[in-house]
C-alpha cells in the first residue's frame, strides 16, 4: 500500500504551494474522428441505409434465408411450369389411369445407360376390376431432355413445345403417378402451384390495401373513428373464418367463368384477413402522427391521404411487409381449404386445393396414395413463409 503511494508521489510533480496549476486545455481544433478512428467495418455500419441494415440483420437468421431461397425456387418452378412439366396439365393418358409412381433408374443389367424408366403393362384385375400396372423390367426406355412435348402457350401468350424432360418415345413418364383421368400428377402440381401461389399474393394484396386504408384512417383520425374501427376489427376477428369463407364462396353464381371465380376467391380471402395489418398500421400511426414532420406537412396544407400515404406509411413499410408475409400462408391455406371442399376454384382451373379435392374420399386415398402428393408443396411453402416472416419481423427493426 505504502509502496503504491510512494510511486504515485514520485510521478506527479505538483507546483509549489499557492502557485496556479498549469493550463492543460489544447487550443487545436477538435477532430473526433482523429481521436476515435472508426474501423472500416464500423464506418460501413454507420453509413448503411436502413434497408441495408435490415438485410444484414436478416442474413443472420439462417432459417429465414434458407426459407427465402426455397420460396424463390418454388415460385420459379411455378413461373416456368410449362417448361418444367413433362406433360400439359390437361393431357389425358387414357391407357394409364391412376398409374403409380414410375421410378427413374440409371443402370440396366449392370450397365449405365443414363436416366430411363421401365414401361408399365396394364392389366385389369378381374376380381376387383382394379387396373394394375406391372413393371416391364426388360425394356428400359430412355428419357428425352430438352425435347418437343405437348404444345403450350407460355404464360398464355407465347406458343411453344420445348420441355425440360419428356416421356420416352412410345412410353410414359409419371414421376408422381397419374390421376383418375390419366393426367400426370407432377405436371399438375407444377401448373397448380401457379394458381395456388399467385392467389396467395393477390389475396394478401387485397388485404394489404384494405388494412392500410382502414387502419390508416383509424390511426390518423383517432377518437370516435378509431373506436368504431376497433370494434369492427374485433368482430371480424372473433368470427370463425373458414365457415364464413365457405358461405361467401358459395354465393358466387355457378355461371361465372373460372377466371371470374379466381378473382372472386381472391377478394373473399382478402376480405377477412386485413384485420392484423389494420391493427399494425393503426398502432403505428397513433404514435407517429404526433411527430413534427407530420405537423409540418399539415401546416403546409397536405391532405390526410397524402400525409398517410406519402409521409407516414413509408416510415414503417418494413413492418408492413413483414406482417404481410405472415398472412400469405394463411391465404394460400384458405384457397386450398375452399377448393378442397369443392366451394373454391373449380376445374378446369387447377390448383393444389382442386387436386386435393380428388383425395377427399379416404377409400380412394387408401388405394391411390399418390393423390395426396399436393400436400407436400402446401406444407413446404407454408413452413417456409412462416420462417421467412419470423426473420423479416426480426429484421424490420434493425436498430433494436
Amino acid at each position: 500500500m505504502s509502496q503504491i503511494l510512494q510511486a504515485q508521489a514520485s510521478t506527479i510533480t505538483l507546483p509549489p504551494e499557492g502557485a496556479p496549476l498549469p493550463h492543460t486545455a489544447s487550443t487545436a481544433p477538435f477532430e473526433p474522428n482523429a481521436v476515435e478512428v472508426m474501423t472500416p467495418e464500423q464506418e460501413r455500419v454507420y453509413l448503411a441505409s436502413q434497408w441495408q441494415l435490415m438485410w444484414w440483420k436478416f442474413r443472420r437468421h439462417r432459417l429465414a434465408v434458407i426459407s427465402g431461397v426455397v420460396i424463390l425456387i418454388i415460385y420459379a418452378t411455378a413461373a416456368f411450369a410449362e417448361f418444367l412439366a413433362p406433360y400439359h396439365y390437361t393431357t389425358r393418358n387414357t391407357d394409364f389411369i391412376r398409374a403409380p409412381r414410375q421410378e427413374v433408374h440409371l443402370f440396366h443389367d449392370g450397365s449405365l445407360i443414363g436416366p430411363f424408366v421401365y414401361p408399365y403393362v396394364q392389366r385389369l384385375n378381374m376380381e376387383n376390376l382394379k387396373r394394375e400396372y406391372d413393371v416391364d423390367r426388360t425394356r428400359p426406355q430412355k428419357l428425352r431432355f430438352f425435347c418437343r412435348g405437348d404444345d403450350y402457350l407460355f404464360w398464355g401468350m407465347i406458343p411453344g413445345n420445348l420441355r425440360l424432360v419428356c416421356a420416352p418415345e412410345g412410353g410414359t413418364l409419371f414421376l408422381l403417378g397419374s390421376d383418375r383421368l390419366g393426367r400426370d400428377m407432377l405436371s399438375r402440381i407444377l401448373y397448380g402451384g401457379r394458381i395456388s401461389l399467385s392467389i396467395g399474393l393477390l389475396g394478401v394484396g387485397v388485404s394489404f390495401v384494405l388494412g392500410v386504408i382502414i387502419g390508416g384512417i383509424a390511426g390518423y383520425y383517432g377518437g370516435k373513428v378509431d373506436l368504431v374501427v376497433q370494434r369492427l376489427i374485433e368482430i371480424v376477428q372473433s368470427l370463425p373464418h373458414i365457415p364464413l369463407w365457405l358461405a361467401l364462396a358459395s354465393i358466387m353464381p355457378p355461371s361465372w367463368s373460372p377466371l371470374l371465380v379466381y378473382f372472386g376467391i381472391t377478394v373473399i380471402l382478402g376480405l377477412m384477413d386485413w384485420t392484423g395489418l389494420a391493427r399494425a398500421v393503426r398502432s403505428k400511426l397513433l404514435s407517429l402522427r404526433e411527430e413534427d414532420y407530420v405537423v409540418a406537412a399539415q401546416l403546409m396544407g397536405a391532405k390526410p391521404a397524402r400525409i398517410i400515404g406519402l409521409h407516414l406509411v413509408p416510415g414503417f413499410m418494413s413492418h408492413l411487409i413483414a406482417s404481410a408475409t405472415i398472412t400469405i400462408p394463411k391465404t394460400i391455406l384458405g384457397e386450398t381449404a375452399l377448393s378442397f371442399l369443392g366451394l373454391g376454384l373449380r376445374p378446369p382451373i387447377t390448383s393444389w386445393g382442386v387436386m386435393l379435392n380428388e383425395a377427399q374420399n379416404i377409400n380412394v386415398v387408401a388405394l391411390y396414395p399418390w393423390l395426396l402428393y399436393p400436400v407436400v408443396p402446401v406444407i413446404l411453402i407454408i413452413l417456409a413463409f412462416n420462417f421467412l416472416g419470423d426473420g423479416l419481423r426480426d429484421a424490420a427493426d434493425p436498430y433494436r
Partner: protein
Amino acid sequence: MLLKYILKRILVMIPTLLITSALIFTVINLPEGDYFETLAAEMQAQGEKADMSRIEFLKKEYGFDKPVHERYFWWVTGLLQGDMGYSFEYQRPVREIVGDRLMLTMIVSFFTIIFTWIVAFPIGIYSATHQYSWGDYGLTFVGLIGLAVPHFLLALVFMYMANVWFGTSIGGLVDPQYLNQPMSWAKAASVLEHLWIPVIIIGAGGTAGMIRSVRANLLDELQKQYYVTARAKGLPPGKALRKYPLRMSLNFFVSDIGDILPSIVSGAEIVAIVLSLQTTGPLLIRALQSQDMYLAGSFLMFLSFLTVIGVLISDIALAILDPRIRLQGAATK
C-alpha cells in the same frame, strides 16, 4: 367490481352479436332470387299446381313477402326464441334437422380447448425453463409443424395412416345406432371413444400457438427482478417458478383462448367434413352447396355465437385471475 365488469362485458357482446347477425343475414341474402321462386318455377314446369298454396303459406310463414329489414328482424327474433328457420332442402324446420349436431359441435370444441391446455401448458413451461436445450428445439419444431399443417390435411393424413396401419376407418363421432338417440351412458362412451382423434387434429394448431406464447411470456417473466430475488434468497427453482412467474403467465394462457377459439371452431368444421363427424360441419357445407341459405345462416350464427361466448368466458376468467383488468376494464396484452 367483478360483477360490474362482467355486466359491462356482456353489454358489449350484444352489439357484437347484432352486427354479426346483420353481416351473416346479408351474406345469406346475397344470392339472386330466393328458394321459393326456384321451387315455384320447378313445380310449374312439372305442371303441378296443388302445392302452390303451400308455397304461399311458407312464404308468409317465413316472411318472404316482406321487405328485407323486416325479414331480418323476424330471423333474429326467431333465433332468440330458438327457432332457427326453415330448411328448404329438407322441408323441415332447421331445429329438427340439427338434432344432436350442435351439442356434438360444442363437445368437440370444449374438449379441444381442454386438450390444448393440458398439452400446451407443461410443454410451454418445459421449453421456457430449458431454453435452447435439445428438448426445447425439438418441441418448438414440432409445434411449428403443428402450426403450419392445415387441419384438413392433418385429418386426411391421419385417416390414411389409420387405414394403412390399423386397417380401420377413424371417421365418425358416434356409432351410427346412437345418432339422434337421447343421451345415455352408452352413447356418451361411444362419443368419447371417437372423440380423441378429431380433438388431436383440431387442437394441433392451437396447441402449437399456445406453446409459443407460453414459452415467450414465461421467458420474459423469468428474467424479471422479482424472480431473481426469489431465487437469490434461496427458494428452490420449482417453488419459485410455481409461486411467481407461472401465475403471471397464466394470464396469457387464459386470454389466448379468445384468440385461438375462432380457429378451433373453423378447424372443427373442416375436420368434421373430412372425418364425416356428425357435427354441424358436413351439414353446413351441404347447405351451402345447395344454397339452403337459412340452414347455413343459422349454423353460421350458431358458430359465431359459440365463439363470442367462448371469448366472453375467457375474458371473465381473466378478470378473476388478474384484478388489474377489472380496474382498467380492458384486457392488457
